[in-house]
């Protein structure tokens, strides 16, 4: 990818990360770890690949996105805000009583295509959206993001079977392979490994990539768009908590909000990252 574009994406991703931290800090609850691990992915999707329109969020031919790992809603909301669906300032109302930014994605929020939060269900809804697209010969694509713990749900594999059987090549499922769930490492809790082999065995075209390298994401998604007759699984190798040093790879940051001191430290780190990126831009 063009170096300037990569820099621009890195700046957007940094804003998204700041939005995530603002959100969970002001909510005093929520899931920073798995939100930070998909900040680059969502930035890449919404700023380079997806045809979506902040002024017309319900446009019929738009590409669709389903956050199957719904607990990482802060990442989706911050990305939608960065894209212009609503002000980033609204992140501070996350999870507040009466606010529209619910703890888990809610279909009534501008830009949110599907309610989610009960793990394993989003990918099925994504299959339905892709099937509708095929049925009507529409050209939109459907993206869905799953957690690597989430794929322990049996429903994920029912959906995997369905998508392959109906040749849903307009569907791309991304597995955020950060190696952690709530009770520990995915390999210690109830291992879903080997993930790529499983999707391949279910008839999917499988691509692996580095979740925090925009060039590699670009390679993966361009390959995905060339695949026909098969759904595509992108296994992105990520770091839970990516971008905030003390949250990285720490299972304890799955579903804990930072206190004031931790919030300030996280924001200082991200502000410094942003300053450097803007210098280079």
């Amino acid at each position: 990818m063009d170096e300037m574009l990569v820099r621009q994406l890195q700046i957007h991703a940094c804003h998204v990360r700041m939005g995530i931290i603002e959100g969970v800090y002001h909510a005093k609850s929520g899931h920073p770890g798995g939100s930070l691990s998909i900040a680059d992915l969502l930035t890449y999707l919404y700023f380079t690949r997806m045809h979506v329109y902040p002024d017309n969020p319900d446009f019929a031919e738009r590409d669709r996105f389903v956050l199957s790992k719904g607990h990482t809603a802060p990442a989706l909301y911050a990305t939608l805000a960065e894209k212009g669906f609503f002000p980033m300032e609204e992140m501070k109302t996350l999870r507040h009583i009466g606010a529209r930014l619910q703890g888990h994605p809610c279909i009534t929020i501008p830009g949110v295509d599907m309610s989610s939060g009960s793990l394993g269900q989003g990918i099925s809804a994504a299959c339905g959206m892709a099937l509708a697209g095929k049925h009507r010969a529409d050209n939109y694509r459907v993206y869905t993001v799953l957690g690597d713990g989430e794929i322990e749900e049996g429903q994920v594999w029912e959906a995997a079977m369905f998508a392959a059987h109906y040749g849903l090549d307009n569907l791309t499922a991304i597995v955020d392979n950060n190696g952690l769930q709530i009770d520990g490492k995915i390999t210690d809790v109830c291992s879903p490994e080997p993930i790529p082999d499983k999707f391949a065995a279910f008839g999917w075209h499988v691509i692996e990539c580095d979740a925090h390298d925009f060039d590699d994401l670009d390679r993966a998604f361009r390959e995905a768009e060339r695949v026909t007759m098969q759904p595509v699984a992108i296994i992105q190798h990520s770091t839970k908590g990516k971008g905030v040093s003390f949250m990285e790879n720490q299972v304890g940051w799955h579903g804990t909000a930072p206190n004031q001191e931790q919030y300030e430290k996280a924001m200082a780190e991200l502000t410094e990252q942003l300053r450097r990126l803007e210098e280079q831009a």
Partner: protein
Amino acid sequence: MSDVIKKATRESYGEALVALAEKYPNLIVLDADLAAATKTGMFKKAYADRFYDCGIAEANMMGVAAGLAAAGMIPFASSFAMFAAGRAFEIVRNSIGYPHLNVKIGATHAGISVGEDGATHQCCEDLALMRTIPGMTVINPADDTEAKAAVEAAILHDGPVYCRFGRLAVPVINDPATYKFELGKGVTLREGKDIAIIATGLLVNEALTAADALAQEGISARVINIHTIKPLDTEIVAKAAAECGRIVTAEEHSIIGGLGSAVAEAVCESCPVPVRRIGVNDTFGHSGPAVELLKQFGLSAEHIAEVVREELGK
């Protein structure tokens, strides 16, 4: 008031499992990647060799629990109420209920008081779902003391038991030194003759507070704690209907299918009197701090008292 001890019943669940492990060597614990939240993590820490994490796969966990029970173990299968009763409902019905297996379901984070996670996690349908399964015992304890006793009662009962626990810390209202848990028996906490407030779970304490306030106004409200939703203590309900003439029910659950429905069904068949149901009014929850949400949804002493006044035309 500052010396009121508060504790979430999910904590009681974790502590009870640990406390009872030696006494019941066949007790075994399953969780679905929520050990830190359901508090089975305490048991995992103390008895690692008797704890099995099933991963995020609640349906399979219930099936595995059925098999463990069929093979002579006493499994406690744990997750949030939404996933234990909701996601896995049909497995619970067909693999646990129908063969009447000795599985105990420890369902935490029930009701609106889940708080910030919002509607997808606020399960207000579990009592209704579990109550419809033939042979299923359904327990919804009011506080720490009752929750711990309920865990042992569940072990001693031969058959499937659904135990509902909460995330929010609630006042301990029962004295552990004198408390006796009798499965299927309601408890009259306050005598009264003008109206009966029949409550369950965290609404029991609210009902007591409401009764105190009402007493100041000269209203004599009976307060009954129903910790066992099924089998329901129909006798205590019929007696309340006959002696008080009016019933208000209070539960952190949908007004459809839970305690309110069970009480209404019972009085219709024994001693028909007006029944007003306080609960979640056929609506989904939303995000917010638990205590504020309880107020907003009318699951509070103030609202119970208001409804009682309305019912009595005061």
